[in-house]
């Protein structure tokens, strides 16, 4: 790279910094004050860019006043949406377990996506360039778009304004106090409700503004929500949750890395050419993983006490009561005789349910007894799926062997990632699992030659004798059923108890000779194996694999299943998986806007059953029947 190229890439990086900073600053503020990890923040950004597009169209593309007015109004509009969301939804769930809040905001992601689809359609929308700023600035023989120069200035200006707001106003003092110590604000007799609403509004405004400002640079599209939330998480974690200067620093670092990865282009390493531009997605999550491992509370953040796990720790586990075991056998019996009467469609749906029941149960083992919440469980599912597919197609192994090896692939990934993960706890641990999942996803997504990139792999068909849907159904029932039985054994075995011991009181566990990290690491690996098996079966049941199989939404699906069912019992995730998979299928058949319906269902369920469906039923059953549920 020539010197002038370096300068231009640096300036590009600076322009990227501004919009990334705006989104991340809002997310960080909201997290700092309300401790809510707002998955919908990327959606706010997306709405911002769409609103800006429409407003500019409305005011006319030529007018500078119209352009800047539209951008500001778009930000304000999103701020208003933020207020509505806070008042109508979040306000009701501040007392709910942290993960339910996360779930609710994910429901929101789905709803907002479909509302945007309904209003703006599926096509990408290209905005105009900023009136009066269509030219470029000559720098050492290269051009920097004028608009980028403005963006470079806007970021630091907003940082300065936020800084003034936080340090020079009473409101800012309250926000900072709440970020450091929640109880203190309560003790000061401050009207918390008002504080939370205003912070949420400001956060949403910043995200909306960040999106709106991008309209001359990128088209508005429906994928922005998830891409942006990924980036924003990285920035918030790297900078330190709750820290605004940290968000700026991190946005700067991440944007520069991205700019330079793109700028460097293809490099030759030992004769092999290697496209650095393909490294952008992986790079940011690698940075996040490194920061989490070395300095979990971020570059400029402070260590924070986090609730370590979801749900009530006091929940006991017990062996199945007699009526319950009988019910389980009855269900099994029905599942065995069912293929005699059921149509293919039902069998295929049931295979999906079995696979996701196993996926959710493995996540439950980690979250419930293990006390480790994963935001990136899809990684091991995806590794199993891709592992099986690649072993079949690239290594030419027989299908049976490829499937048998899929748990090993999942376990191997979990073994490597787990070594780092178990060094952390709480939200930091969850974020690291997310980082690893995104690294895995990005590698798969961008490694066209090996994994088929965004197209995935096709032709992953089962062996001859398994092509019948009925036979495949029985194989899945057998594998998933046996795995669930094993997971149940593990939970009741000394190993499962040891995990719970470490979750309940790491201090006591350590002082009765338990090496908690080692047990957690092993648990992580075991869980990876089960998820890998689920992925392997899934690949063969569909005949193809795509990167969506290990993207963020798949991980969230797992969380939804576990939390909907109830985190503290194994029955929970199984019921959750069944209900969720069935709902998804049912709703998708009824309407184009199935995501919104699903999102609304999730939100409704969170509001109605903060303890999960099984927890809800259990609380209403006599103890004699509920035991072991």
């Amino acid at each position: 790279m020539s010197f002038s190229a370096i300068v231009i890439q640096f300036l590009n990086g600076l322009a990227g910094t501004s919009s990334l900073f705006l989104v991340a600053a809002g997310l960080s503020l909201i997290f700092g004050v309300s401790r809510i990890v707002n998955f919908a923040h990327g959606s706010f950004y997306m709405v911002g860019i769409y609103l800006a597009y429409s407003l500019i169209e409305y005011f006319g593309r030529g007018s500078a006043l119209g352009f800047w007015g539209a951008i500001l109004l778009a930000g304000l509009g999103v701020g208003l949406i933020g207020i509505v969301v806070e008042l109508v939804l979040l306000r009701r769930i501040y007392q709910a377990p942290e993960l339910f809040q996360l779930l609710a905001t994910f429901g929101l992601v789905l709803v907002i996506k479909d509302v945007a689809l309904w209003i703006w359609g599926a096509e990408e929308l290209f905005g105009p360039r900023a009136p009066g700023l269509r030219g470029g600035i000559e720098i050492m023989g290269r051009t920097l778009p004028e608009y980028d120069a403005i963006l470079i200035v806007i970021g630091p200006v907003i940082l300065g304004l936020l800084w003034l707001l936080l340090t020079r106003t009473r409101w800012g003092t309250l926000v900072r106090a709440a970020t450091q110590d929640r109880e203190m604000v309560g003790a000061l007799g401050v009207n918390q409700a008002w504080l939370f609403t205003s912070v949420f509004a400001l956060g949403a405004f910043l995200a909306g503004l960040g999106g709106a400002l991008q309209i001359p640079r990128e088209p508005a599209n429906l994928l922005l929500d998830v891409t942006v939330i990924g980036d924003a998480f990285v920035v918030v974690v790297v900078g330190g949750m709750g820290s605004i200067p940290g968000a700026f620093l991190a946005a700067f670092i991440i944007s520069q890395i991205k700019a330079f990865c793109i700028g460097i282009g293809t490099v030759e390493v030992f004769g092999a050419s290697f496209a650095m531009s393909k490294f952008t997605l992986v790079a940011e999550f690698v940075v996040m993983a490194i920061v989490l491992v070395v300095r979990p509370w971020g570059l400029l953040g402070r260590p924070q006490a986090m609730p370590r796990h979801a749900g009530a720790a006091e929940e006991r586990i017990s062996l199945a009561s007699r009526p319950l075991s009988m019910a389980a056998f009855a269900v099994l019996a029905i599942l065995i005789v069912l293929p005699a009467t059921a149509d293919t469609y039902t069998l295929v749906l049931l295979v999906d349910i079995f696979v996701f029941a196993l996926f959710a149960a493995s996540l439950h083992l980690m979250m419930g007894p293990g006390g480790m919440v994963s935001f990136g469980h899809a990684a091991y599912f995806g590794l199993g799926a891709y592992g099986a597919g690649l072993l079949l197609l690239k290594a030419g192994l027989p299908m049976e062997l490829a499937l048998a090896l899929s748990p090993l692939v999942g376990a191997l990934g979990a073994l490597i990632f787990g070594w780092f993960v178990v060094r952390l706890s709480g939200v930091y641990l969850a974020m690291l699992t997310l980082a690893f999942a995104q690294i895995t996803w990005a590698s798969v997504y961008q490694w066209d030659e090996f994994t088929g990139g965004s197209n995935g792999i096709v032709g992953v068909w089962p062996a001859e004798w398994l092509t019948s849907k009925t036979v495949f159904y029985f194989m899945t029932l057998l594998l998933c059923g046996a795995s669930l039985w094993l997971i149940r054994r593990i939970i009741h075995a000394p190993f499962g108890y040891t995990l719970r011991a470490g979750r309940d009181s790491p201090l006591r566990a350590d002082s009765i000779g338990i090496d908690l990290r080692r047990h957690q690491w092993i648990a992580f690996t075991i869980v990876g194996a089960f998820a890998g098996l689920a992925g392997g079966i899934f690949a063969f049941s569909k005949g193809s694999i795509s990167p969506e199989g290990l993207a963020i939404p798949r991980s969230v699906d797992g969380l939804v299943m576990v939390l909907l069912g109830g985190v503290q019992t194994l029955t929970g995730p199984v019921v959750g998986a069944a209900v969720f998979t069935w709902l998804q299928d049912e709703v998708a058949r009824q309407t184009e806007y199935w995501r919104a319906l699903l999102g609304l269902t999730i939100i409704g369920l969170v509001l109605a059953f903060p303890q999960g469906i099984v927890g809800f039923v259990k609380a209403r059953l006599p103890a004699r029947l509920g035991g072991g549920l």
Partner: protein
Amino acid sequence: MSVLKVQDLAKSFGGVRAVQGVSFTVEAGELLALIGPNGAGKTTCFNMLNGQLRPDQGEVELGGESIRGLAPREIWRKGVGRTFQITATFASMTVIENVQMALVSHDRRTLGLFARTAGLYRKEALSLLDLVGMADQSERPCGVLAYGDLKRVELAVALANGPRLLLMDEPTAGMAPQERIALMALTAEIVRARNIAVLFTEHDMDVVFAHADRIIVLNRGELIAEGAPEAVRANARVQQVYLGSGGHH
């Protein structure tokens, strides 16, 4: 040989010198009380003895072998049981499961993936609970126990590995006065019968003078007195610390 030998132990937190140059020994079958006003450094001392904190300087020997710098779990394996000032138990488990867990760990069976934990070491666990008077509550969840009962569970757990040394940080805190005396009498009886060395802290002087064989007094991180209960009671500096500073009791 002394069960525990502590030499010149010290620990600072930033500028706070929590423990400075403390030395003492505990013999088998002996109950040694470590007393001192709030913030004297007692808990910090305990945390260095069981490995939770790394001493800045000094030596800790268990039966002549250095245990300095080992992790709590390693020190536990060498026969040191610990109870905490703020009780630490497994809230999602029953009383008996808490004790079973310690026994399972003692036999290094925590990696077992198939056995049913509920059936393991039940008899041993019950007899330990019987010892501390908790057998009748063995099936209750630990999360709902009264504080005094939690302290008893902790004692049973601490006894599960057949320890040579018990470290008990305020074993009777949060109990009614009658109950305190009873629990310490029980503890004394158990440890004498098993020849276990005990180091305990206690703010209730009645309990201390009723059961301690020897007392050491800590003030602002420094040992200021050591000896038989009567001698310590009569010690002028101790009286000054306890009366003059308006400290506890």
